[in-house]
């Protein structure tokens, strides 16, 4: 009957999560990380059927993670935490962390 539907969740999304999606969830929950960044054109992503994962490139010779950091935290420790989270996914490949932007609170922006 409707056998193929068994592999879909209630909202119609596939139940299986790709490594890139799992990694994106882990990285964006790292302290100091505001969000994942798609680069200046939004092209940095893992392209999956029907969706894309912004800021993560898992295919190729390296693992590439692009993030927007929160204002006020030194960036190297943030990058270290991101790298630690990525390690299980890297399988020996280098993990390159790109801090593409900073999220600055409005208070600091408005002060002229």
């Amino acid at each position: 009957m409707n056998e193929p539907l068994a592999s879909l969740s209630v909202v119609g999304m596939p139940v299986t999560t790709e490594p890139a999606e799992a990694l994106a969830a882990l990285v964006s929950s790292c302290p100091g990380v505001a969000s994942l960044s798609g680069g200046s054109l939004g092209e940095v992503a893992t392209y999956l059927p029907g969706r894309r994962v912004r800021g993560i490139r898992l295919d190729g010779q390296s693992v590439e993670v692009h993030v927007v950091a929160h204002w006020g935290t030194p960036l190297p420790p943030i990058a270290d935490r991101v790298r630690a989270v990525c390690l299980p996914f890297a399988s020996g490949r280098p993990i390159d962390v790109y801090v593409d932007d900073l999220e600055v609170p409005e208070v600091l922006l408005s002060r002229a």
Partner: protein
Amino acid sequence: MTTPVESSSKTGAKPTSSSSGSELTTAQGQTTIADSVVSKIAGIAAREVSGVHALGGGSGTAKAFSAVRERIPGASQTVGQGVSVEVGELQTAIDLDVVVEFGVAIADLAQGIRRNVISSVERMTGLEVTEVNVNVNDIHLPSDDNQPAEPARVQ
């Protein structure tokens, strides 16, 4: 009035890099910090020094651009305005365009800006700041604030 004060040494600030133990280049991969990140940090650090009226100003074209930007709806005042940076793998160089308040010792202020920018950028990014060039483009007079528009010369 334009008073250029340039200096390319990092006097008055000690290098703080490589003391944190967090390196940008590790055995497991590189950390790359984008230009906009460095310019935001430098912009905020320069602005918070007392005696700095604003960043930017500068040449006629720069002023014209910022005047246009102010009128574009949704275009926010960028923190990176008046800041240009070059970022390498381990080092960065920063140029600042500054409008100072009237009544400050400009050389001392430039030194204060330099110290704050270097310490902020080095602490936040782990990059070594090789130089901070401060261009004082204008001086802001107290009378500039609430000056009514000049009356028309002809009726």
